[in-house]
């Protein structure tokens, strides 16, 4: 009874932990935009009335105060822009938010102008003001990418340009806090840049979702344990370490707690041990493929607490379970030659999808770039900033080449260096011409790309894709109308077929691999201090049922020997079991759950000196989260071990697959390979 009580308490504690862990997340995500967010919005919209923003007071504000005010306004604008997509465009709320954003933008521009006037830097005064970006973090990434050369002071086009605008100067100041992305959990789920956005658009259109992880990886205690919820052993074990824990056994006729029991087993593959010994990353593809034979062998170690009928002892007899499993046929290994057809299909499908992605990406990028509002409110100033950055980079390269020229006596090399300097100087002239042009960077975006100048093409390729699409994508999106956004979605919808085809190919490949046959040899011992020791060896065969995608057949056949402590009491005989496994629900990684599985199984035991025993079992395995499942089973037996009567018992427990859990938590063993240099410059 104590064991049962402890088990129930454990379940409750674990369940509470899971629930309590999950609750804050769900609570944060379930906030209604019209509820709490609405009240937050009110506070954001009231900022415009802040006394500190009044023009009469602004003149007396210090630079630090301006920064703080600027940051606060930017924060509120960012929050409102995140809130905006959650409101119906037809609602009055939407209009009010749009109006507030406009007011905040006006105040931000006003602050920029004041800061511009306050600074004495001629460059700042002469440069047009660049609109503040939505995120200081992403803005910081732009200059951060302008790093120095590893081997020389040569700088790329991204190399530390001079401050070119008041906004940049404000952002570059450490005192300026980052925008409040962290305080809004919803912001985390929003695509932070164009690449994330377009991938998510594609994902959203492609509905097929299949979770990772072979259902055949056994993490339950082996069927040799009397309390196991698994009647039929499966043919493979977890790649890393699997832990099976049965918390309680419940008998339908257990009025006197006679069948309380607890069992624990740990399953680990020789591969996991070998990787740990070698200090290798088990997910290193080279190590994974080179050592695939190690994955054929796995070990099981555990115990099974039993209480015999009529036993008055408080402590149950603990049986030790030990064994190993060897995969004789492993058709499911990713490295098997039989799976190469799938590899070729995937390669072809991926190539087709990537080609299509190129077309889709170009169409969307062109559409956004040619948008009039994007042009006027972003490109107009960003283009000139880009040119200034390129100019700084070209000058730095010239400086480096001049140093190289001064240090070298090699005539041939010097001639080439001089030619390079001349080429860069030509580029510099082009950049200066653009900056001095009366058009101020207002190139004609309606013309085909082929008719643009080199500088305009450079900006389109490198500037807009980085500062616009990657660093300021939310701002760019905010400049698009609803119709524009619909058009973007239409681009994706119209070109989705190759992505759907690839998903189908991947799913088909996954199903094919999962249905490949596996044959394993399993040896297991169960030794007891008081009772009989048991030794079992068996062959396990498993494969998908042809013509189905969610049904699997498992067959066990083996020999069992029971070594009795009574002279002449030994028993031996054969066992056979079969199981049909059905995947009830589709696999769904969206909520990080494995599918629900339903099992029907039978087992027969023919032991010498005993009447044959037969069992039938129905089991359902319910996922709690990725890597943790609750198996619940109902078993009918024609007889118990000692009493010639039928028995029906139900059981439940937890199974934990650490391989899945570790993948969830992105666990990674130390890799000697990763520490070693992997790159040598190509000549």
């Amino acid at each position, binding site marked *: 009874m104590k064991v049962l009580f402890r088990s129930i308490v454990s379940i409750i504690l674990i369940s509470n932990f899971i629930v309590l862990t999950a609750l804050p997340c769900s609570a944060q995500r379930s906030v209604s935009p019209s509820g709490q967010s609405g009240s937050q919005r009110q506070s954001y919209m009231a900022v415009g009335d802040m006394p500190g923003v009044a023009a009469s007071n602004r003149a007396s504000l210090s630079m630090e105060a301006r920064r703080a005010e600027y940051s606060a306004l930017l924060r509120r604008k960012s929050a409102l822009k995140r809130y905006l997509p959650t409101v119906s465009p037809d609602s009055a709320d939407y209009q009010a938010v749009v109006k507030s954003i406009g007011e905040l933008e006006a105040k931000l521009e006003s602050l920029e102008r004041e800061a511009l006037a306050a600074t004495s830097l001629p460059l700042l005064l002469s440069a047009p003001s660049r609109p503040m970006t939505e995120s200081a973090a992403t803005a910081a*990434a732009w200059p*951060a*990418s302008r790093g120095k*050369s590893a081997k*020389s002071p040569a700088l790329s086009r*991204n*190399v530390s340009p001079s401050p070119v605008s008041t906004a940049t100067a404000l952002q570059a100041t450490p005192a300026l806090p980052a925008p409040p992305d962290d305080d809004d959990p919803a912001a985390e789920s929003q695509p932070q*840049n*164009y*690449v*994330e956005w*377009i*991938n*998510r658009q*594609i994902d959203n259109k492609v509905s097929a979702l299949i*979770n*990772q992880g072979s259902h055949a990886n056994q993490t339950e205690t082996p069927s040799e344990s009397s309390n196991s919820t698994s009647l039929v052993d499966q043919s493979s074990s977890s790649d890393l370490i699997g832990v099976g824990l049965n918390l309680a056994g419940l008998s339908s006729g257990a009025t006197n707690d006679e069948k309380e029991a607890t069992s624990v087993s740990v399953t680990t593959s020789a591969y996991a041990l070998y990787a740990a010994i070698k200090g290798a990353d088990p*997910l*290193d*593809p*080279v190590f*994974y*493929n080179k050592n695939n034979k190690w994955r054929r062998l796995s070990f099981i170690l555990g115990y099974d607490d039993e209480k015999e009928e009529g036993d008055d002892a408080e402590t149950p007899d603990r049986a030790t379970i030990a064994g190993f499993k060897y995969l004789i046929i492993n058709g499911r290994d*990713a490295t098997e030659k039989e799976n190469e057809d799938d*590899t070729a299909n995937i*390669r072809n499908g*991926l*190539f087709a*999808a*990537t*080609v299509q*992605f*190129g077309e889709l*990406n*170009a169409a969307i990028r062109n559409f956004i770039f040619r948008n009039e509002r994007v042009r006027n409110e972003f490109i107009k100033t960003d283009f000139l900033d880009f040119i200034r950055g390129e100019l700084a980079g070209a000058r730095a390269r010239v400086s480096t080449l001049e140093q190289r020229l001064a240090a070298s006596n090699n005539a041939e090399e010097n001639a*080439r260096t001089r*030619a*390079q300097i001349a*080429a860069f100087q030509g580029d510099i002239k082009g950049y200066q011409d653009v900056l001095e042009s009366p058009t101020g960077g207002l190139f004609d975006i309606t013309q085909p*790309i082929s008719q643009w100048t*080199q500088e305009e*093409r*450079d900006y*389109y*390729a*490198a500037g*807009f894709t*980085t500062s616009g699409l*990657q660093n300021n994508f939310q701002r760019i999106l905010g400049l698009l109308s609803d119709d524009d956004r619909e058009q973007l979605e239409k681009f994706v919808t119209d070109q989705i077929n190759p992505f759907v085809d690839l998903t189908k190919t*991947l799913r088909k*490949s*996954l199903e094919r691999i999962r249905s490949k046959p596996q044959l394993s040899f399993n040896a297991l011992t169960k030794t007891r201090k008081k009772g009989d020791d048991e030794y079992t060896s068996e062959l396990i065969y498993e494969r998908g049922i042809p013509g189905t995608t969610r049904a699997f057949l498992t067959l066990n056949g083996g020999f069992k020997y029971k070594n009795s402590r009574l002279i002449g009491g030994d028993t031996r005989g054969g066992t056979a079991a079969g199981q049909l496994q059905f995947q009830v629900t589709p696999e769904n*990684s*969206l909520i*990080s759950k494995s599918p629900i599985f339903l099992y029907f199984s039978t087992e027969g035991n023919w032991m010498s000196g005993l009447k044959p025993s037969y069992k039938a079992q129905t089991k359902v395995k319910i996922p709690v989260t990725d890597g943790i499942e609750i198996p619940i089973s109902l078993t009918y037996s024609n007889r118990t071990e000692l009493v010639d009567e039928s028995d029906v018992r139900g059981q439940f427990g937890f199974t934990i697959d650490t391989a899945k859990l570790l*993948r*969830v938590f992105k666990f990674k063993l130390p890799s000697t390979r990763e520490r070693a240099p992997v*790159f040598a410059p*190509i*000549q």
Partner: protein
Amino acid sequence: MGADRKINGGKDAGGVVLRATSPINDYLLYKVTVSGAQPHFTLVERGRPLPLLEAPPPVQKTYQRKWPIAGTDQVSKGDMFEHNLGMAFLKAVKYRYVIEHYDDGDNLIAVLKDVEWSSQNPTSMAFEPFVISVR
């Protein structure tokens, strides 16, 4: 559902201006590092029938390719190229994609892109674009 994208060190350029014509012969180095059993990725140049880089057997941890390669990749001043990386996660759980910019003396000028795509969903796919303007 889809794959997760992580940016390392803020290196997330969408494109680059590459001086890859004589006398300045800068080049890019594409590197794809894989975690898992078997990678499925392809680096495709828009309009080009064959991939620039993919993962034929034998499997490796890191695949890399210089671009442009003299005699293989034809580039002229004013050209614009789009290189898109496609990744599938059937037998791999993570791809790290790095683009480095070198001068003709093999001096690293900048790391333009350093991103990681990861997924636990074997039917996931991900795509990473990059645009090059040749001077």
